[in-house]
């Protein structure tokens, strides 16, 4: 009798977490779901790149489930289970929204539809996993302190992806890099690093207490983080084919432009995730 009651209570709690997960999927997925370029990438994206993106997103989602899952899971198998639940939540919300928005209507082949959905499922699943942090009230301080140095770096990559993925598919991201001159590019890079360092300190990264010396904190967190941000941006731009046919200087410009939101996202990962 009491066991049945407890089970009911547990499923009720899980249903509430699931509801939050849908909210998170929408919150994070909506900007991309309502971006025209993202629908077109379903038509134009290289299948191999899409497959690589989906495969690399699995460990990323797993890491997110470990650090900030929508249920307080701390074991490996539970985190894996959460990843698949989040993917299911993402898949359902993306399909419903894209159908509702009329994106599917002119589409000819099922392959195109699959591409459109697959590309959107990953950000939506990220949102589902982050839901507990976005909507939940049960933030515990032990979660915050748990991440060690590799974990901090991972969170920075996730944060960079969080913002950069929203901006990368738009035409503006390309246009800005073509409009900028060399001095503007350098200034944007300096601004990215400066803001990143400031936010990292204000958001109270572990660096603050462990790396007492500001110079070593700058090298270990800000520079290391910015390097990872640039690599993350290179991966996203490569995925969208935005680096194809670009020379090295044009590639560097594109990286710095996308690296700006990436750096902000990475530095505020502690606030977002």
């Amino acid at each position: 009798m009491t066991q049945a009651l407890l089970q009911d209570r547990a499923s009720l709690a899980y249903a509430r977490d699931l509801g939050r997960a849908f909210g998170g999927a929408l919150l994070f997925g909506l900007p991309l779901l309502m971006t025209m370029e993202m629908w077109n990438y379903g038509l134009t994206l290289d299948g191999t790149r899409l497959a690589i993106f989906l495969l690399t997103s699995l460990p990323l989602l797993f890491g997110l489930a470990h650090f900030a899952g929508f249920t307080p899971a701390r074991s490996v198998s539970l985190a894996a289970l959460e990843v698949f639940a989040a993917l299911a939540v993402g898949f359902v919300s993306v399909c419903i929204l894209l159908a509702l928005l009329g994106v599917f209507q002119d589409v000819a082949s099922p392959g195109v539809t699959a591409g459109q959905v697959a590309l959107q499922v990953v950000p939506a699943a990220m949102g589902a996993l982050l839901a507990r942090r976005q909507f939940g009230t049960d933030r515990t301080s032990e979660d915050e302190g748990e991440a060690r140095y590799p974990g901090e770096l991972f969170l920075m990559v996730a944060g960079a992806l969080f913002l950069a993925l929203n901006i990368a598919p738009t035409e503006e991201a390309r246009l800005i890099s073509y409009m900028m001159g060399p001095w503007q590019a350098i200034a944007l890079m300096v601004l990215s690093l400066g803001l990143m360092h400031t936010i990292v300190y204000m958001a109270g990264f572990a660096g603050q207490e462990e790396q007492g010396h500001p110079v070593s904190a700058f090298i270990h967190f800000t520079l290391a983080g910015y390097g990872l941000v640039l690599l993350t941006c290179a991966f996203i731009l490569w995925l969208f084919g935005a680096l194809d046919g670009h020379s090295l200087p044009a590639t560097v410009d594109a990286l710095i432009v996308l690296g700006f939101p990436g750096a902000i996202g990475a530095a505020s990962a502690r606030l977002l995730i």
Partner: protein
Amino acid sequence: MTRKPSRPPASKPTSTSKAPDPPWLAWAMGGLGIVLVLGCLGVILWRAMSEVEDPDVQLRLIETRPSQGQWLAEIEARNLGGETAAEVEIEGRLGDETASALVDYLPASGRRTVILGFSENPEGRLEMRTRGWIEP
């Protein structure tokens, strides 16, 4: 002799709560960041120092192939200049027949592939030119 800043003793107060992270990883990742930042800076400065030229669009016929009742000419458009060209209109002429395509962006030192359709095989007889572009 002044006291040299030596390695901190093992009982460092800040690292009592957790085992210390491997410092080599922090330095390696920091080093990676420095290399990438300096690399980007170097590329930008190198481009800033070199003379920036206007877009210089060069067209080259790669191949022709029949496709669904017409002939397609695959053309490589390269921008040898130092500025990006936007909305580059590329025209191919085969006798009286003309075909054109619009390239949204042709980045500096970059390349794009353009396909033009004709009723006959344009191999060897195709005249190509760039009609114009916009500075982004």
